[in-house]
């Protein structure tokens, strides 16, 4: 050990900390955020600014009330990340109070009430989205077709603020249902998918984000890219995203093969709504997901199954937030039943018997070092 620090063992430290973790996630979600801002213009930027500022304000207020140090709590980036993730899951032109109430609920009720960062049971951003969707269904389902910054139809800076503060509403003809919402409504009127989808859905446009939807759920490929980068950086593990996306893929393929007129094809499910964002950025929250790898797989598959069930048979067209929050609630149960094997013990907890030929490890034999050294 040539380390200069006199800390206790273990001496190897990979420099991970909450601020670094949050920074990495923020960096990963940045491209999708910027792209969303480009697509939806100033009102979306205003909403993002409001959620982030209100999030930091609420965090500071709660820390002050609890008598804990404010600066480190604010600088760890968790409130910032909650604000960004919530803004990404909101309709881009939502009025300011949606963002403010949502992020206040996320920080105060979703996180600080349980004891602050690392203590929460539910993912704060998803909890806030569920609360907003239940409380304000009209504002939360007014979707906008993209108005890119370069197209000329995007509102200017001043007009953007007017829209955010509710003085000027989005005019008719620019709003439309998301593909999932539209398909739900039309299916309810006994139309078949081959009548519904043409003209409303192209897989390419959906993947590129050229569809109406939340700020961060349109640019699927950038979200995917950010998620893969997080995987590569080992900030998250593959168990939850693969479990979640895989479950949706398997279920959607199976039902689509059974009845293509009733059940949408798997690509539509993967490329629309907040599934990518949920799978890589919401469900993988280390605080609210299981610890063991098998537990994480169960968690991910559970999320995916719930998403498909809610989308197909539930009361809402989109169910990622509900699925994640429900599985968050099941996390302690999963952790109780699926535990990692303790070192030196069998799965049932008995001491593991070491076979005679393995008593001396190969490494020790080669270097001639006694294992007690």
């Amino acid at each position, binding site marked *: 050990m040539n380390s200069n620090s006199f800390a206790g063992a273990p001496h190897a430290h990979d420099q991970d900390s909450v601020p670094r973790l949050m920074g990495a996630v923020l960096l990963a979600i940045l491209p999708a955020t910027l792209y969303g801002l480009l697509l939806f213009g100033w009102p979306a930027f205003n909403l993002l600014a409001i959620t982030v500022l209100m999030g930091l304000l609420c965090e500071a207020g709660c820390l002050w009330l609890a008598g804990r140090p404010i600066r480190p709590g604010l600088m760890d980036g968790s409130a910032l990340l909650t604000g960004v993730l919530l803004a990404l899951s909101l309709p881009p032109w939502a009025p300011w109070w949606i963002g403010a109430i949502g992020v206040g609920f996320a920080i105060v*009720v979703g996180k600080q*009430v349980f004891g602050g960062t690392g203590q929460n049971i539910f993912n704060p951003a998803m909890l806030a989205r569920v609360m907003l969707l*239940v*409380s*304000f*269904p*009209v*504002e939360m389902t007014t979707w906008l077709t993209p108005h890119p910054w370069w197209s000329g139809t995007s509102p200017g800076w001043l007009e953007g603020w007017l829209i955010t503060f509710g003085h000027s509403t989005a005019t008719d003809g620019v709003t439309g249902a998301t593909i999932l919402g539209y398909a739900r409504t039309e299916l309810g009127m006994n139309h078949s998918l081959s009548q519904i989808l043409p003209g409303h859905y192209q897989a390419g446009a959906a993947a590129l984000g050229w569809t109406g939807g939340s700020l961060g759920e349109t640019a699927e490929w950038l979200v995917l890219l950010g998620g893969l980068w997080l995987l590569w950086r080992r900030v998250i593990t593959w168990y939850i995203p693969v479990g979640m996306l895989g479950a949706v893929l398997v279920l959607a393929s199976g039902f689509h093969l059974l009845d293509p007129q009733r059940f949408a094809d798997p690509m539509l499910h993967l490329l629309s709504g907040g599934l990518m964002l949920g799978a890589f950025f919401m469900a993988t929250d280390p605080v609210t997901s299981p610890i063991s790898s098998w537990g994480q797989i169960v968690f991910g598959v559970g999320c995916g199954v719930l998403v498909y069930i809610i989308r197909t048979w539930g009361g809402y067209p989109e169910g990622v937030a509900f699925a994640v929050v429900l599985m968050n609630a099941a996390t302690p149960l999963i952790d109780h039943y699926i535990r990692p094997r303790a070192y030196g013990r069998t799965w049932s907890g008995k001491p593991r018997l070491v076979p005679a030929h393995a008593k001396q490890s190969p490494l020790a034999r080669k270097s001639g070092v006694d294992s007690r050294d």
Partner: protein
Amino acid sequence: MNDYRGIFADGLWHNNMVFAQMLALCPLMAVTSTATNGLGMGLATTAVLLASNTVVASLRNWIAPEVRIPVFVLLIASLVTLADMAINAWLHELYKVLGLFIPLIVVNCGVLGRAESFASKNPVPAAAADGLAMGLGLTLALVLIGACREILGSATLFSHASLLLGSSFTFLETTLIEDYHGFLLMLLPPGGFLVLGFLLAGKRVIERMTEQREVKEEFHCSVQ
């Protein structure tokens, strides 16, 4: 125990049925979507509590300890049935709103709890005072939570109060914000839990502050 001041302090604050004992939460979540409903439910429960405590205390020497719980339940059930019929007869509009929950007063743990822990061990006047105090404490909690949920959820206060109290109380019905969007979550049961949680936290803050003040005053006295 004949310390009536203590009994009322217990019922209204220190040992409040909702804010300290955490009993009666089922009717609390179910009916407190408006302050008026809370008031109606609270008053009905108060009447039942007052009557049940009185009856149990007056019969306490004849009830064998082995069968006391069934006897208490039977007494309370009869009284609740009376209250149910009375409200149906004289406050029919309110009955239509609270209908289902009036018979459920019988399963309110608070009523049985007072019979068991207080009325069965105390003389009639003290037991009656305890029933009244506990009932008023519960009413206070129900109205408070109902008011919070109503203000946040629909920006009104004491809506439909005239149904409960008569047309002379129409002035209580206020609309705080015209053209309010509505905050649906507050009117649903989760809103009840959230408001209850924040009010509980508020009560503890107040208690801690008074405690600190008392400590400070004692310190000053001892210095002088």
